[in-house]
């Protein structure tokens, strides 16, 4: 049987970059082919070529041994290729049915939209693949996991049999990932062929049939899960040996830096999010907050950094009462904050890289004097920080939005770490980053700890919390269920606590 899709020698150059350099890829029918690579390795370019968004400079595409030219999404769709983009392409104010039928509308009398016809076909597809969703709800009312189902239904509705999934698990909770893998298996069972783009190694090992690793626009290796290990894949991706396990010495805790007592706060909808949270973090230790997303972690970090009103309880940092203090006051107390949503809260996307590097100190000398900014000093400091923290950018004066996710995060880390700090609050510091960047940021956090900084780490990745923390606090429904020594617990114990099961 011929492969359902074959890419031969695909080459695409952008000004200054060779994004794809003679890439070959073979997708067999009814299999999952993982496309692995760091950010900037050329995965997205390759998939955009396949989906007709870019035209390749060289190379050929074959579908079931037929040479094809793909000059636009319409052509890709007609060839049975569908793509779930990393950032969902859904219209929040449309219903599921409207979203699904956009572009291939069912019509009554050749004029009027017929949402019910679309809805009944969506019903059939839901049934067949176990993708439960109500066609008449508005997409904005759906959780992310269900929105992803809608994206997949969109492809199946167009009768795609080659499905490209671009980092589909980046936005999902661990439970949703499980659910998602079930869906993938049911798609494969029915003969669909999938290209699964990711940089999460454990997922590749679990779900893929074949693996192609890209690095710097070239194929760095082709293998199968049965013939490789996570460590080998990681070094293929990065091009050198990678330390997956964080290497760290036992902590030497000092005085209490952050003291939180009986903290209470509500979420955006006014429901109780923190119900009497108490803990402390000492100099030179990492306290990790584990928990399934949405159990109050976001609100906790916001309350500590002055971004959310505290209704009861107190926050003391280095002895000073900073309950409901302004963010700037808290920052001046020596608190660094790596926020959960870097694009929303961590950066001013339209500002240049250089300005983003000094957002927390721009108002002080040497960056500002007598109310005016000294660009020379800012650029000099930014240049130094970019070097020190390995921020890869063609220029410091381009908008920070042009950088990759990993480099954006490094800008934040560079900014937050480049001044004397006593407390580091890092929320989801490696979300959506590639292996190389994760390793780098982990190392920097441990370095800070070893310098005597108190570190509060919030992450929904249990692996991350387990490997970085000295103590682990588990949050469930706005409360700290338990605080444990990291070297005395197992993954399973923490997992049970995260699910609200308290064993004695």
């Amino acid at each position, binding site marked *: 049987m011929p492969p359902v899709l074959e890419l031969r020698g695909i080459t695409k150059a952008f000004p200054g970059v060779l994004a794809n350099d003679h890439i070959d890829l073979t997708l067999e029918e009814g299999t999952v082919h993982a496309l692995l690579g760091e950010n900037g390795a050329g995965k997205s370019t390759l998939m955009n070529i396949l*989906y007709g*968004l870019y035209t390749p400079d060289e190379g050929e595409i074959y579908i079931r041994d037929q040479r094809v030219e793909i000059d*636009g*999404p*319409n052509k890709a*769709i007609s060839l049975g290729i569908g*793509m779930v*983009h990393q950032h969902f*392409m*859904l*219209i*929040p*104010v*449309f219903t599921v049915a*409207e979203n699904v*039928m*956009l*572009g*291939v*509308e069912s*019509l009554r009398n050749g*004029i*009027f*939209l017929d949402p019910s016809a679309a809805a009944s076909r969506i019903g059939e597809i839901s049934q067949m693949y176990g993708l439960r969703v109500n066609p008449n709800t508005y997409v904005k009312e759906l959780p992310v996991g269900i929105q992803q189902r809608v994206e997949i239904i*969109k492809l199946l509705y167009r009768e795609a049999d080659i499905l490209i999934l671009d980092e589909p698990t980046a936005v999902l909770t661990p439970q949703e990932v499980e659910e998602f893998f079930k869906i993938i298996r049911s798609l494969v069972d029915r003969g669909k062929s999938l290209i699964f783009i990711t940089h999460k190694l454990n997922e590749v090992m679990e779900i893929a049939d074949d693996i192609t690793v890209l690095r710097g626009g070239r194929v760095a290796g082709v293998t199968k899960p049965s013939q490789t290990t996570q460590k080998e894949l990681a070094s293929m991706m990065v091009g050198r040996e990678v330390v997956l396990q964080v290497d760290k010495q036992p902590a030497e805790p000092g005085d209490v830096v952050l003291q939180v007592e009986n903290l209470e706060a509500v979420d955006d909808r006014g429901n109780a999010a923190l119900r009497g949270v108490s803990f402390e973090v000492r100099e030179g230790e990492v306290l990790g907050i584990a928990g399934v997303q949405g159990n109050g972690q976001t609100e906790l970090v916001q309350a500590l950094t002055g971004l959310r009103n505290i209704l009861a309880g107190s926050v003391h940092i280095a002895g000073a009462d900073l309950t409901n203090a302004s963010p700037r006051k808290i920052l001046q107390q020596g608190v660094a904050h790596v926020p959960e949503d870097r694009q929303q809260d961590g950066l001013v996307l339209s500002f240049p890289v250089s300005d983003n590097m000094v957002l927390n100190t721009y108002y002080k000398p040497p960056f500002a004097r007598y109310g005016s900014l000294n660009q020379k000093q800012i650029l000099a400091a930014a240049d130094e920080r970019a070097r020190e923290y390995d921020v890869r950018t063609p220029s410091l004066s381009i908008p920070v939005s042009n950088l990759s996710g990993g480099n954006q995060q490094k800008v934040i880390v560079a900014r937050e770490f480049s001044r004397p700090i006593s407390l580091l609050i890092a929320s989801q510091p490696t979300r959506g980053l590639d292996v190389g960047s994760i390793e780098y940021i982990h190392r920097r956090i441990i370095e800070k700890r070893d310098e005597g900084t108190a570190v509060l780490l919030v992450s929904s990745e249990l692996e991350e919390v387990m490997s970085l923390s000295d103590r682990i606090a588990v949050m469930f429904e706005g409360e700290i269920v338990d605080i444990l020594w990291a070297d005395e617990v197992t993954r399973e114990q923490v997992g049970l606590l995260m699910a609200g099961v308290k064993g004695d």
Partner: protein
Amino acid sequence: MSTTVWERIAERGGISPQRARTYGFIYLAVGLLIFLLFALSTSPGQRTTFAFTPGGQSNAIPIPDVSIPSGFLLYFLALVTLFIGSWQLARGFRRINVVLGIVAAVFVIAFLTWAARDSSLNVTGLLSSSILRAVPIALAALSGVLCERAAVINIAIEGMMLSGAFTAALTASIAANVWEWESTFAAQTFGLICAILFGGLLGLLLAVLAVRFKVDQIIAGTAINILATGVTSYLASRILAQFSHLNSAGTYPRFPIPVLSRIPIIGPALFEHNLLVYILLPLLAGVHILLFHTRWGLRTRAVGEHPKAADTLGVNVFKIRYVNVTLGGMVAGLAGAFLILGSVGRFDELMTAGKGFIGLAAMIFGKWMPFGGLGAAMIFGFADALQTKLAILSVPIPSQFLLMAPYLVTMIVLAGVVGEAVPPAADGQPYEKD
């Protein structure tokens, strides 16, 4: 859980307790205002006459004028409002917006009763002229809806209307007086079509600037406005002022609709207009159906909300925007032509006087819906008509203040009543393929 009285009241109306209370106090204040300002300043013998038959010839079955003692009616209206306010505070209303509308209407009636004490007020005439003034605003709003639903802000409606008005006046006059067409109707329709086409041309210009060259849409629109103001004013003073036969398009004749126009009050107010007025409703209905029940509409709204998503599904974002902005320009041209052929008959410099901008306000007030825009336009049209009426009644309010009324209403409505209106998500953003 125990709920307070306020929470229960608020729950009835589906609003927050604070708002429920505020509404109650506002109603009481309005009642007091009617009492203090109007009722107390009438003298016992004064009577207000409400006339229900418009001046001039009318088909409607005549009904007699009603004459009421002004003071009596005002005391009654004040009491009604105070009662509504107390009820709101004590029990709460279920249909909060309807009650708000009723109180506003009562206040307007009270004001008119007071203004027309010792004289007569033609209710039907007032309504009829409100409609006439609402039409161009509703059309301007529709033009805005067409453009902004595809995420292009059209601030140039004012200029497109002005150009449309000029074009209609000039071309209709040329057809009638230079080419000496026999039928005035044909000449006027020629002017109408020219205005629509010229509006479409300006729309296309805006589309090229905003979609093709990604110029900031506010700046592109402002440029078109300034261009239109300058060129029409120049040409009007150079050509139209010297050759008056080039500025005598006239208006379409009134066409009373059989049967319907004979209904008292409503008949003359709604069904004794010229053809252009009657076009409005089918046009609004047509656009509404197109927007919400056809493929073009679904794609337009998708492009307005999330152009990238539409693009990945093979929808041509640029094409949709070109088409919609051009259509929007055509509707704005029609709105301009209405000022000539449906209302004034000749072109005056700057005759749009901000109607295009008020149309944009009506579009927002109407939440980017064709009929929502009409509803808002009616309010503005009424304020405009009232202003002229009051000037005739010689109310002791300076005329400059009366002239402000429509604009004042625009601001109050935009700032206060509408609250948060949600525009299409991509409104104003140029689309770039990356």
